[in-house]
């Protein structure tokens, strides 16, 4: 223990300027960040000052991890593990104690200020911190896996700050290259509730192993090889994602269970199948207009992913990979929607204008309404249990044209919630003077699987509750006035499964040339 404290004290004496810089940045971040919450206004701050402070807060959000990078690199390199000329390697340093001293330094000057900052932000945002200890700990674990351990591991296999920075840049360039390569890969991103479950533990386990190995044996090339192999594994997984397996695991085929409560049919009356050039080279986006109905009351069915199969004349067949689908949620009643998939332009043109059979396989999630909280819309900030703190916009009373609340949530997006509000058809001034006919408007917020925390430098996130809704109301303005009735209904998972929809005969439209597209726009 004495040796641990001895090395720790030396590091504190040596790196006090870096420590002060890091603490200063963290303190400034805690002071500035709440500007992102609409209701937190600074005394004597003009609109321009507030915008400037927002920029400062965003810069500080990046500077906090940058200061960690500086601190970690400096403290690890103080007893560099690379090379054979360092003074300390022929002194009675015991490697577990040296490693413990470095861990203590990181705990004291990264974890502790980070925890205090998160705590302070929770208090400022109106959340009792003790209720969010699991989220706080989970965020620390995230910070460990995504920032601290990788920085320590890279510092442990580099000789100095410059080399560490260059290595970090090389890794970032590698990530960019992988992102570009994955665009060319056959697989597309898919939406599963689990996301990437492998990279996080892999980085944590390999990173910690590399650090321990390097401190225990100082086998630089072996440790570098270990880190490089983990990075290559993650890169390969990112490029060649086993999407079919991922979707099948998350959305198991029905296997004897009754079909999901959703009936889809081709919308042939008002809309047509659309095709346009995709952002991806030599690909086209095909949009299938659908009518969704059959969802029981108090239920919601969401389409998460889609896979298309097309059979054309002469045995021509093509199947797409899974594609992610955003914001396709259906409730009681008939809903119009479009499901899009991407296919190679060359294959699309092979099908020509002959009728084809289209089969859509849909990864769907069925949910049902759970706990509901009702309360009047207040001009003051109000707390919604199990949701967050929602401040009302100051200008609602007079000009609530696009009623939008920016709610504060702790550590993560809230559980999937349907927020409804009674809406006036007249501006609020008139509506308040003489009660009007009201309608209900609603919007979806949050996620079915929010987890304990989403990694962030902040403990407080904002989520937008846009009561203009996802459905457009042409030629109509919304007025959600003070004292309007708000309902927050949480939705619970019923099941996730796959369902098929077959359109026996459909004609794919001709793909317009670039010239035709320009002409049409004009």
């Amino acid at each position, binding site marked *: 223990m*004495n*040796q641990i404290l*001895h090395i720790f004290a*030396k590091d504190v*004496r*040596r790196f006090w300027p870096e420590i002060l810089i890091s603490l200063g940045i963290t303190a400034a971040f805690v002071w500035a960040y709440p500007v992102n919450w609409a209701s937190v206004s600074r005394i004597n701050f003009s609109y321009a000052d507030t915008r400037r402070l927002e920029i400062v807060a965003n810069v500080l959000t990046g500077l906090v991890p940058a200061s960690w990078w500086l601190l970690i690199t400096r403290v690890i390199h103080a007893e560099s593990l690379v*090379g*054979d*000329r*360092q*003074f300390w*390697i*022929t*002194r*009675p*340093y*015991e*490697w577990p104690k040296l490693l413990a001293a470095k861990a203590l330094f990181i705990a004291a000057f990264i974890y502790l200020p980070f925890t205090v900052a998160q705590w302070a932000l929770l208090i400022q945002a109106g959340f009792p911190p003790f209720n969010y200890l699991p989220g706080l700990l989970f965020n620390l674990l995230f910070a460990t896996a995504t920032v601290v351990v990788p920085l320590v591991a890279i510092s442990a296999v580099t000789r100095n700050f410059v080399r560490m920075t260059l290595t970090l840049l090389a890794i970032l360039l590698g990530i960019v290259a992988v992102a570009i390569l994955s665009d060319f890969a056959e697989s597309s991103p898919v939406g599963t509730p689990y996301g990437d479950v492998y990279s996080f533990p892999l980085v944590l386990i390999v990173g910690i192993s590399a650090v321990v190995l390097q401190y225990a044996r100082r086998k630089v090339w072996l440790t570098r090889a270990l880190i490089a192999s983990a990075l290559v594994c993650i890169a390969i997984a990112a490029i060649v994602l086993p999407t079919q397996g991922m979707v099948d695991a998350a959305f198991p085929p029905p296997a004897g269970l009754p079909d999901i409560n959703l009936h889809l049919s081709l919308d042939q009356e008002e809309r047509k199948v659309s095709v346009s050039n995709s952002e991806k080279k030599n690909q086209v986006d095909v949009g299938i207009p659908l009518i969704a109905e059959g969802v029981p009351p108090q239920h919601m069915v969401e389409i998460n992913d889609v896979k298309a199969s097309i059979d054309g004349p002469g045995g021509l067949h093509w199947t797409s990979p899974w594609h992610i689908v955003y914001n396709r949620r259906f409730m009681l009643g008939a809903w119009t929607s479009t499901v899009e998939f991407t296919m190679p332009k060359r294959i699309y043109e092979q099908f020509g204008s002959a009728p084809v059979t289209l089969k859509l396989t849909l990864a769907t999630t069925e949910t049902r309404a759970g706990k509901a909280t009702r309360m009047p819309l207040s001009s003051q900030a109000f707390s919604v249990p199990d949701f967050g703190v929602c401040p009302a916009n100051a200008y609602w009373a007079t000009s609530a044209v696009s009623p939008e609340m920016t709610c504060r949530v702790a550590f993560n997006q809230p559980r999937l919630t349907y927020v409804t509000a009674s809406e006036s058809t007249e501006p609020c001034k008139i509506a308040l003077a003489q009660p009007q006919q009201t309608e209900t408007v609603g919007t979806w917020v949050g996620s079915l699987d929010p987890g304990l925390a989403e990694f962030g430098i902040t403990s407080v996130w904002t989520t937008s509750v846009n009561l203009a809704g996802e459905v457009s109301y042409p030629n109509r303005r919304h007025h959600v006035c003070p004292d309007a009735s708000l309902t927050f209904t949480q939705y619970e998972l019923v099941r996730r499964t796959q369902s098929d929809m077959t359109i026996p005969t459909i004609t794919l439209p001709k793909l317009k040339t670039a010239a035709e597209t320009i002409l049409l726009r004009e």
Partner: protein
Amino acid sequence: MEEAISAHRVTKNFGRTAALRNVSFSIPRGAVYALVGENGAGKTTLIKLMMNILSPTAGQITVLGTNSHDLIGKSFVRIGYVSENQEFADWTTVGGMLNYFRGFYPQWDRDLERRLIRQFDLPLKRKLKHLSRGVRMKAAFVSSLAYRPDAIVLDEPLSGLDPFVRDELVQALRDEARESTIFLSSHDLAEIEAFATHVGFLEQGRMIFSEGMSILMERFREVSVTLAEPLAQNWTPPTHWLNPELSPQQLRFIHKDHRANISEEQVRALLPTATAIRIEPMRLRSIFLAMAKAAKANRLELEVDPSQEGAAA
């Protein structure tokens, strides 16, 4: 006598380059062992293997009874190491460095530290990065002597220093490390001749000899022979006569296995026409140069003679 440091058939390869080949030696406790050799002979590599900074490709080294491979952490409480190439904690002052190191050694002798600081006139408040090479080396000496290590390993500690500083450092070793085993590599043959008790000569990664200084000095002689008539053209000297230089009636060579009374008889037996024989003792520098020259000329593959190794021990 108990060994402080020993090496057994140590080989170190860097890729395809052999830096050390089958190096063996043995150093008794309390000895002052000087490792000499030209630049690139493998002296620093050998020291790094001893200190577990590098690992041997083959063979093993034992330091104070511990395999060098296991020299980590607490082992260094008993070992001092100073190298001309060592990176210092440049950010701190001399006093700060000594304060810091003091915490690692339970047996740190504060009086000895103060004495050495006074003797070397060390500026305690000056940062190491602002010190001259000589003063840095003095500070390194204090930090490695103050805990009275059982073994002190010094890699070229005197190179590039002015004679005054060299004297100060050697004197400190003589006075304050009397009970320690000292292993140093050096080019400064005059300095170590008066100081070392044992000497090893490394040439192109091979240990040419390793023995007690007195035995070595006794063993090597410079021999001049005056001949009555020139030697035959096909005459070849025995292998222990190094660097023979023959003028028509004069032969000079280095006798590397000299024994009193026997060598002269040997010469007379091999050179019957010898009219005068002069046998003179040699300085370490001359022995070193003669061995280097002989090794270069012949690329002799001499292994350490086990009997001589025993003598050194």
